[in-house]
């Protein structure tokens, strides 16, 4: 067991190395000139040369690569072209904000996805199922930046149901003392119900948008897995014993249909922590790493963006490794040593 765990962690480390190499390749070696992109459209040749000099872009590629890996080994992500701040500090200081939003969205995606998926499977081919299927298609086909914009216009500006998109707290509130880094939790731990409520109301809309869209893939998987489990031979055995529908649904259906959800959570996490997150953080002024990536992009700050991509890649690898462990624990048929 210990050996398989070690082996698995080794693979994860290799993947992280792969992430670093691929990121270097993309940012340094693709035809685009990083210095020129960083300098912006209207930069003079002098300014470009200056950046080139400062980031060692005139060195031979192997030297650049060695330098880059050496820095990474010291967890140094370099510094931003825009404001010269170390990228690592910028990202770590924003990480808990993204984590709070991302985990809440993930929770919403899984709960909503499992609930709707199971409902659709139980009422297969009936009205409930049809409605859920429509929801899945619409949620999969909705652009997150558009629905966020529509939601802000209608739910916030017109109806005032949610807080204005002013980040983690409405104006006039100050952040609770830092314990977990999650505002809602921290405010509760400090007994500050007012701030906790305000933070929750700020968190809810962006988390609902991200989680709602991400839930579509969970619904799809849970629906088909639950149908498969309920039509399985072992569910038939349970029916032959006369077990109740509820017992069959939970012990035979849900238990076995949650397995594929574990594999899917990685993809969902990719969306709520990264893909969709960049846009939603920007539109909601959420002070997390997605907003940082957006600002870096807008300012042609390729080095800050590179740092962001490496962090996301590493987090993604770690999440997927953790999920593999979880999966092998949940499904007795999977042997981690054999599973790749």
């Amino acid at each position, binding site marked *: 067991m210990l050996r398989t765990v070690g082996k698995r962690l080794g693979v994860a480390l290799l*993947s*992280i190395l*792969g*992430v670093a*190499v*691929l*990121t270097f390749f*993309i*940012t340094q070696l*693709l*035809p*685009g*000139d*990083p210095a*020129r*992109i960083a300098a912006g459209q209207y930069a003079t040749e002098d300014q470009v040369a200056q950046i080139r000099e400062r980031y060692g872009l005139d060195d031979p590629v192997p030297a650049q690569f060695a330098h880059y890996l050496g820095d990474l080994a010291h967890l140094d992500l370099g510094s931003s072209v825009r404001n010269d701040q170390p990228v690592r500090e910028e990202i770590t200081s924003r990480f808990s904000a993204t984590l709070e939003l991302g985990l809440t969205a993930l929770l919403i995606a899984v709960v909503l996805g499992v609930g709707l998926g199971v409902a659709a499977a139980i009422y297969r*081919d009936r009205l409930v199922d049809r409605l859920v299927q429509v929801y899945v*298609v*619409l949620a*999969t*086909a*909705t*652009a*997150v*930046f*558009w*629905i966020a*914009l*529509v939601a*802000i*216009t209608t739910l916030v*500006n017109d109806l005032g149901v949610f807080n204005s998109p002013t980040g983690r707290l409405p104006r006039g509130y100050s952040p609770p003392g830092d314990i977990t880094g999650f505002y809602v939790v921290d405010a509760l731990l400090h007994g500050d119900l007012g701030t906790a409520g305000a933070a929750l109301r700020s968190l809810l809309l962006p988390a609902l948008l991200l989680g709602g869209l991400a839930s579509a893939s969970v619904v799809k998987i849970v629906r088909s897995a639950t149908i498969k489990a309920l039509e*399985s*031979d072992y569910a*038939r055995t349970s029916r032959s014993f006369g077990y109740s529908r509820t017992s069959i649904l939970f012990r035979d259906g849900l238990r076995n249909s949650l397995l594929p959800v574990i594999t899917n959570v990685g*993809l969902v996490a*990719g*969306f709520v*922590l*990264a*893909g*969709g997150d*960049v*846009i939603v953080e920007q*539109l909601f002024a959420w002070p997390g790493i997605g907003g940082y*990536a*957006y600002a870096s*992009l*807008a300012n042609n700050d*390729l080095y800050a*963006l*590179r740092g962001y*991509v490496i962090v*996301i*890649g590493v987090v*993604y*690898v770690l999440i*997927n490794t953790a999920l593999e462990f979880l999966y092998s624990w949940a499904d007795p048929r999977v042997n981690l040593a054999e599973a790749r």
Partner: protein
Amino acid sequence: MAIVDTASGFRITLTSRFRAGNKTAIAAMGVLVLLLLLGLVVPLVAGSSNVAQQYPSLLSPSLRHPFGTDHYGRDVFLRCMAGARVDILLGLAVAASALVLGSLIGSVSATFGGATDAVIMRLTDVFLAFPGVVLALVIAASLGKDPWYAAIAVVIAFIPLLVRLTRSKALEVRAADYIAAARLSGARPRQIAFQHVLPNSFKYPFVQSTLVASWAILDFAALSFLGVGVQPPHAEWGAMIADGVGDNLLGAWWPSFFPGLMILLTAAAFQVIGDWLDRRLQ
């Protein structure tokens, strides 16, 4: 109506379920064809929609301007149609490129096996270590802000998925009974590869690529929204939404609302078709 006596009991597939799916899929195809035709014809008839100040700015939707006008005084409907050409063709092109390249690499991996297979698989592993949009984003940003670069970035982000799928299906097919039968009856390896393995392993990536078209439209629009895809003043749905963000604050919802609706309609149509093909295949 097919009744199959399988080892685990009986599975019954009812044709009526297919028929219901058929209608939706045909409707989805109709929507795509219509939008594409409008996208090709309307800009020809109405002239360039990129030119600013043809009309007063921010007119709300009316009979004359069904989607209203934007803050430069351009007709949003005309721009949406011009965008249809860009986005739908781009979705199809990205899906086709990713399909061709992905299934090619995937079959190479499955056919040669050994070191070739191992290298290709490790490479896809590394690409799949990033969420797709993030990968596309950093590739597009590193290549420079240009719609072609963004399109290439999206293609690259989807290739690993199709490589994986083609490879696993090819291996599955190769292990199937009828291939063994063909081999026993003396068919040559090349004959087996071209007559059996390729066609049978190709159909799954093909169906998947319909879904890729849907995701590609969303991802490409997202890149444009983030400023690394289509650049203003060119009409593209994602870029138009980015353009209309500020108008919302002035109470004008239409410049950003309708392009998003177009994305929804198109991406949903590809989804429906993909789901339908997927069900047909099983």
